Structures are given as structure tokens and as C-alpha cells.
């Protein structure tokens, strides 16, 4: 059992509580999407799960072990996290950036082994950026760049991958592209994926497990079709909406109402 779970987790900024006493278990080998209005604490939760945020109360465990009791590098060999604040240094090339995902597997001077090279090559292949390997990251399009970051995270070879709003700044086509890629990785490798998403309908379509948050707590969680109802959308987002079946996937499709279009 390698479940990543939050137990009575409290997180905050400078004494201001953002999340209090939250319990959550990421189902193994599944895709979990966390949705909720701005400032509901969804990104903070993900950061807490990845030990990027100091814990004020409760704990986060991995396979039963408190993650703060693990050496950071050991945790980084089991849980990968792609934060929103990633920076591609000026002039860095794709293969070089992806190779930095090997850091938790290396010693102080980061000597490269042939093992590392093979892992990096596989990561480049499976994200479809192998032919870009020698290009500077700065020259790539937004969609390609995000694939490169995913490749770096894959080179980390973890069973669990956390992503904080990986589709932000991408157009619809590239959003679908990226979510398809993550689904592929989940199916082919059995990687547990958890991500914060803004787009409710895509979250409902791609997630096995949907977590709806509001004001630092979980409003509802479970299979999207069971979770994403008119009531839950109203409670979490304060939004009047109709929920109809997605004509493509059959998952819930949230159609917001607004003030000027009363609807049928």
C-alpha cells in the first residue's frame, strides 16, 4: 500500500488558516482532480501533500509513513510534484531540463549514469518531445513546454505525480492534449496522478476521483458522475448551473446560468 493521504491536515500562511483538519486519500493508480473556486486552498493542499508547504497540524502519510520523517530525496523518488512556479533557465535545452528530474537519484555532483540517459530518453519519448531534445526550452510553444516539464517529472520515476494547474495558460486543444497524455501515463504505467484543475468539465471527464473543495474543506468527493451535481456546484462555487450528460464522454457537463440567460 503506497497511498498518499492527508490525515487531519491543517495548512496556512502566517497564522492564517487555509485548510483545517482535512482528510483525503489519493486512490492508488487512479487520476484524481481537485476543483474549487479561487483561494479555496486546492493548490495549498497539493503543496502540502508534496511537502512544499509547512504543516500546521495533522500529517501527510505515504504508505503509512509520515512524509516529514523521510529524507527529502527519498520522498522525491516516490512523489513528484510540478508546481506552478517552475522556471526554465535562460538557454536551457529540452534534454538538459528533463535530465534534471534525475536529481533525487544522484549524488552530490550529479554524475550521469547510462541508466539516467535511458530514463531521460524514455521520458522524452513518452511525452512526444524526443525530436525537440536539442532545442532551447524558451523557443517552444506553451503546449510543448508543458510536455517538457511533464517529461522532467517522469524522469523522476515516481509512482505518484502531483500537478498544480498543469493546463493553465494552454488553449483548449492543448489542454485536451495534455490531459490525454496524463491519462496515457496513468494507464500505461499505473502512475497515480493528482492535479488541480480549473476547468470543471474536463476534470469530470478525465478524473476517476473528483474532489470538490470550498473554503478550505472538501465539499464532496468520489466518482465525477456522483459528485458533480447542481447542488454541489452551487455550494462550492455559489453558481447556478444545469448539469447535463457530456454528449461525448457521458460524464457530467456543467452549464452555468448567469444573470442574463434564465434558461429553459
Amino acid at each position, binding site marked *: 500500500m503506497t497511498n498518499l493521504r492527508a490525515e487531519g491536515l491543517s495548512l496556512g500562511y502566517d497564522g492564517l488558516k487555509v485548510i483545517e483538519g482535512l482528510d483525503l486519500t489519493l486512490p492508488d493508480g487512479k487520476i484524481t482532480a481537485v476543483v474549487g473556486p479561487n483561494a479555496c486552498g486546492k493548490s495549498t493542499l497539493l*503543496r502540502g501533500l*508534496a*511537502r*512544499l508547504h509547512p504543516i500546521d497540524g495533522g500529517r501527510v502519510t505515504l504508505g503509512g509513513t509520515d512524509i516529514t520523517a523521510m*529524507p*527529502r*530525496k*527519498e*520522498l*522525491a*523518488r516516490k512523489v*513528484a*510534484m*510540478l*508546481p*506552478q*512556479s*517552475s*522556471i*526554465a*533557465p*535562460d*538557454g*536551457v*535545452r529540452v534534454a*538538459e*531540463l528533463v535530465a*534534471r*528530474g534525475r*536529481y*533525487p537519484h*544522484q549524488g*552530490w*555532483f*550529479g554524475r550521469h549514469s547510462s541508466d539516467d540517459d535511458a530514463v531521460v530518453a524514455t521520458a522524452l519519448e513518452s511525452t512526444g518531445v524526443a525530436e525537440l531534445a536539442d532545442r532551447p526550452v*524558451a523557443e517552444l510553444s506553451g503546449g510543448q513546454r508543458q510536455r517538457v516539464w511533464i517529461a522532467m517529472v517522469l524522469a*523522476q520515476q515516481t509512482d505518484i505525480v502531483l500537478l498544480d494547474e498543469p493546463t493553465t495558460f494552454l488553449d483548449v486543444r492543448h489542454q485536451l492534449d495534455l490531459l490525454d497524455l496524463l491519462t496515457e501515463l496513468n494507464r500505461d504505467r499505473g502512475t497515480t496522478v493528482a492535479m488541480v484543475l480549473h476547468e470543471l468539465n474536463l476534470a469530470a471527464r478525465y478524473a476517476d476521483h473528483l474532489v470538490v473543495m470550498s473554503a478550505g474543506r472538501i465539499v464532496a468527493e468520489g466518482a465525477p458522475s456522483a459528485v458533480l451535481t447542481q447542488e454541489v456546484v452551487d455550494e462550492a462555487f455559489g453558481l447556478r448551473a444545469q448539469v447535463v450528460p457530456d454528449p461525448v464522454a457521458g460524464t457530467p457537463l456543467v452549464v452555468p446560468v448567469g444573470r442574463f440567460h434564465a434558461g429553459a
Partner: protein
Amino acid sequence: MLTALAALLLVVLASLALGVRDIDPVEVWRALTAPVAGFVDHDVVLDQRLPRTVVGLAAGVALGTAGTLIQGVTRNPIADPGLLGLNSGASLAVVCAVWIFGVTSPIGYVWFAFVGAAAAAAIVFSVGRGQPVRLALVGAAVTALITPLITLVLLRDQQAFNLYRFWSVGSLTGRGLDTVAMLWPFVLVGVVLAAALAHRLNMLALGDDVATALGQRVGTTRALAAVAIVLLAGTATSLAGPVALVGLVVPHAARRLVGTDYRWIMAIGALLGPVMLLTADVLGRLVLPRSELEAGVVAALLGAPVLVAVARGRNVAGA
């Protein structure tokens, strides 16, 4: 790497051979291996040029390495020892040494410079808490606070003013081998630390969050880097005065040559530091017929165009 090494050898040779009195490289070699007492050429090499060359090597390595570390750890391409307030701290300590304690020999105020730089760094790093923007702001605040204090002392003490005029420009003369003999262990420790931290800087360059997610203790990296920076920049300032631009330009030049891997940037930076400083020193001897320009002045004149070239070549929008 080999090119940088060759450039360093060449500039060391030039530093030993060239000046008001040009000396044949063969004689330079003889002076070093089998000196003849009383032979003017040999005396010039051993008594004047060897000390300033060794000072230039030590200070150059320290500046190049410190500059690379500072830019890496702050992710700030315009960071250098001056930005973090180290030079102003050293300057204040030196003018106080002259004013209060009447110290007049370079060997006497070496430690003052060192302690001044270290004190300024301690303030900047502890208040700045490792956050790049905060470090730069606190560094600027410390410099802004110290600069008028320096002026205050200089206005009151004629002797301090005279000494400071030359010291503050940065120069390799007037400091002997004994100064280097005292300070080289600091450079050694600083360089070893910098080498050990180089790969960590590669991760730090991706952002604090990514570095942490990859399993790095970012705080530890910053603390160790701060120690190395104080040792290196403190030594460089003690040896050569607050030389401007070497610590700023060298990392950019190194990046141009070897790309974004800090393990290479650090190595090349450590070689290019003394190349730049010694080149400045040698040129300073040659431009004026009967006199010299201080290395610090020439380094600034050399460095500024390089910096402009780097700025023009850089994709500012994509930074």
C-alpha cells in the same frame, strides 16, 4: 575548458613579463627557477610582478566563483558582491581601521575588510532569508546606509581619505605574497564548497518549489552558499579592494561559453575570474607610458562593454 586554461596561462605569463620594463619569457622562466641575485630583470619579476600576479590569481578565482554563486543562488543575473552590500561593508571597515586605529599598511586592514564584508553579508543574508528579491533589496538598503557613513569618516580624516581613494578603486599592487599566504585557505574552502554546490544550483535555477520537489533542502543550499560567498568575496575585497564588475561579468561570459549547467559555469568562472582581473592589470601597466592605471579601473572599462553585449544578446522577454 582547455581554452580557458590556456588563456589563464597566457595572461599569467603576460603579467610576469610585461610592464614598463618588458622581459623576455625565457628570462621570466629563469627568474622563477634559477634567479640570479642583483639581476634587475629577475628582481622585477620576483619582487614586483610575481606578488601582484599571485594576488590577481587568488582574488580573480575568488571573484569569479563568488559571482557565479551569488547569481545562481539569487537567480538574479545582475547580482554581484556589490549588490549584496559586501563591498560597502568592507569599505566602511577599512576607513574605520584607518580613522580609529591608524592602520596604514595593507596587511593591517586585510582583516578589517574581511570582517566588514562578512558582517554586511551576515545582515543581508539573515534579513533577506534567502529570497532573491528580498536579498537584493536588503543589500541595497545596507549599501545605502553604509555609503554616507563612509563619506562621514572620509570628510573628517585626511589620511583615511588618501588611502581610501586608491583602495576603493581596486588594485593588485601594494599587497604582498604574505597577504595571499594568510588568506588562500579561505579561497580554497570557498572554491571546494562552490564546486560541491554547483549541481544544487542547477535545481535551484528551476525555482525553489521545483528544487524542493526534486528533494533538495533549499535552505541548506542557500546557507552553505552564503558561507562560501562570504569567504570568497571577503578574501577578494581584502586582497584587491572592491573591484567592480568582475564578479558580475564573469558568470555571464562563462554561461555564453558553456551553457546553463552550473557545474561547468562554476569551473569556467573560476578560470575566467583571474583571466579578466590579470588582463585588466596588465593593460593598466601598458596604456600609460610612465605610469599605471589601477586594475579596478581597467576591469570596469573592460567589463562594461561585455555586460552591454550580454544584455543585447539576451532574450529579455523570455527571461
